[in-house]
């Protein structure tokens, strides 16, 4: 079996006294769509930020294309980042630039291609996500779904091998969300990209995933094919799949606070 394109080993992240990720291990194979699923606060966005090298972990390693991104030189990190495209949850488009300029930006900054070539590349990417007619518009003139697609066009501008999505369906209506999932699947087929999607939308996850990893309270509790995941008997996965809420008052934190308020413990 080929080496995984992304390999996360023992990833541990603490914010102050709070442990967000607890020794997470995950291998993502070349060409697959891996969906990282989890409830709010489970640590999935934190994990994504570490995979794309925006933050340094407390412990553990993240290897992308065999390179430890927290121990490599700035030049190596730059080279790795050129092979990754990231579409952020809030799109993160530059409001002072048109959609076309947004998509052109990484090509202008990181290549010496001639302007006409860049124009053609840009238009191809915009057309691939269905925004060929919106090239001259500015982000604030677009709908939420169009902004997300523009962010995807920018993420694929340099034909990355790895494409990362943070909550692509968040805030979109089901039809637009399904359209975006369709774009993700087309990109996978057309460009043979490895795709990592962080989401909590089950419908979207089952539409696009080859495999699903689930985070719960900072630990991975499953890495399965989507069919195995759907039929899992794990209590936490079943709770997530069947949308059963946590009994809030039973949480250890709430119970402890109740005891503190009642003066039943030596709370500070």
């Amino acid at each position, binding site marked *: 079996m080929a080496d995984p394109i992304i390999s996360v080993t023992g990833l541990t992240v603490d914010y102050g006294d709070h442990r967000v990720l607890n020794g997470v291990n995950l291998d993502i194979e070349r060409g697959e769509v891996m969906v990282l699923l989890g409830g709010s606060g489970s640590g999935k966005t934190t994990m994504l*930020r570490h995979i*794309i*090298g*925006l933050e340094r972990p407390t412990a553990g390693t993240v290897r992308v294309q065999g390179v430890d991104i927290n121990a490599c030189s700035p030049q190596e*990190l*730059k080279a790795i*980042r*050129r092979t*990754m495209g*990231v579409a*952020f*949850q*809030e799109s*993160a*488009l*530059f409001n002072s630039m048109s959609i076309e300029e947004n998509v052109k*930006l*990484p090509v*202008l*900054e*990181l290549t010496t291609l001639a302007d006409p070539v860049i124009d053609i590349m840009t238009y191809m990417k915009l057309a691939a996500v269905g925004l060929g007619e919106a090239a001259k518009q500015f982000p604030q003139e677009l709908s939420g779904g169009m902004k997300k697609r523009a962010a995807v066009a*920018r993420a694929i501008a340099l034909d990355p091998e790895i494409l990362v999505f943070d909550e692509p369906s968040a805030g979109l209506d089901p039809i637009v969300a399904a359209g975006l999932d369709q774009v993700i699947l087309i990109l996978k087929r057309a460009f043979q990209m490895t795709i990592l999607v962080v989401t909590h939308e089950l419908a979207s996850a089952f539409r696009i995933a080859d495999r699903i990893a689930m985070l719960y309270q900072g630990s991975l509790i499953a890495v399965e094919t989507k069919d195995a995941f759907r039929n899992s008997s794990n209590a936490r996965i079943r709770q997530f799949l069947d949308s059963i809420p946590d009994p809030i008052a039973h949480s250890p934190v709430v119970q402890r606070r109740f005891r503190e308020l009642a003066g039943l413990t030596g709370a500070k």
Partner: protein
Amino acid sequence: MNVVESVGSRVLDHLSYVGGLTMQFWAGLRHSPHTLPWIGKRGRWRTAIRQMAAIGVEALPTVAVMSLCAGFILAMQAGAELRRFGALQYVMDTVAIGFTRELGPLLTAFVVGGRSGSAFSAEIGTMVVTSEIDALRTMAVDPIEFVLAPKYVAAMITVPCLSIMSSVFGMLAGWGFMYISSKTTLAMFLRYVATSIELRDMFTGLLKSLVFATIIVNVGCMEGFRTRGGPDAVGRSATSAVVKSTFLIILADVFFTAIFYLTHKS
């Protein structure tokens, strides 16, 4: 936490801030050539030109009005005292030297710091909050090079120009006072100014304006990059940028004025 720990912690925070500011300054300086035409990155100089318009051209009316007012005030205050000694003509020296060495760069720095320093901070703070800075980093584009360097190059060109304009307007106000009080002609005023100002005075003023521009850009951008949280944090960063840059400008002014005073051979 006892008093010693509290003081120590605050001192460490301030040292960390100054350290961060120094590192950012060097990074900005290193990346500045990438903003220049021909040798820089494609199209980056256009961003610098846009920044020059925002920092310089749009600030000129405010700088002009403030300098005219300050020049007239200085001339009136000096005139009130000097008249008693029959030395009214020294008002022209006072205004010319005062503006060239001190008030021109200082007034300009306050205007640019208030307008552009806060705007830099708000712009970058918003980019942080909306993940645009993260997007740049994941695209392997250095935010210092992309965001800060064009502002720095623009400020290094426009702030000295504005300082010169401020001195010119301040001196014109001084001439206005002299014309009203003693019918001094413009030609006579200019002769006085030419004899009272030395090259050293102009060098002092320009050097100060370059230092002030460096402080405004770096503090404004630093506060923006350090923004954490939501839209309210952007507002706090903008306020903080103005307060800190004003404070540092005054400190730098004292430092440089002291150096020039001590090295001045009369």
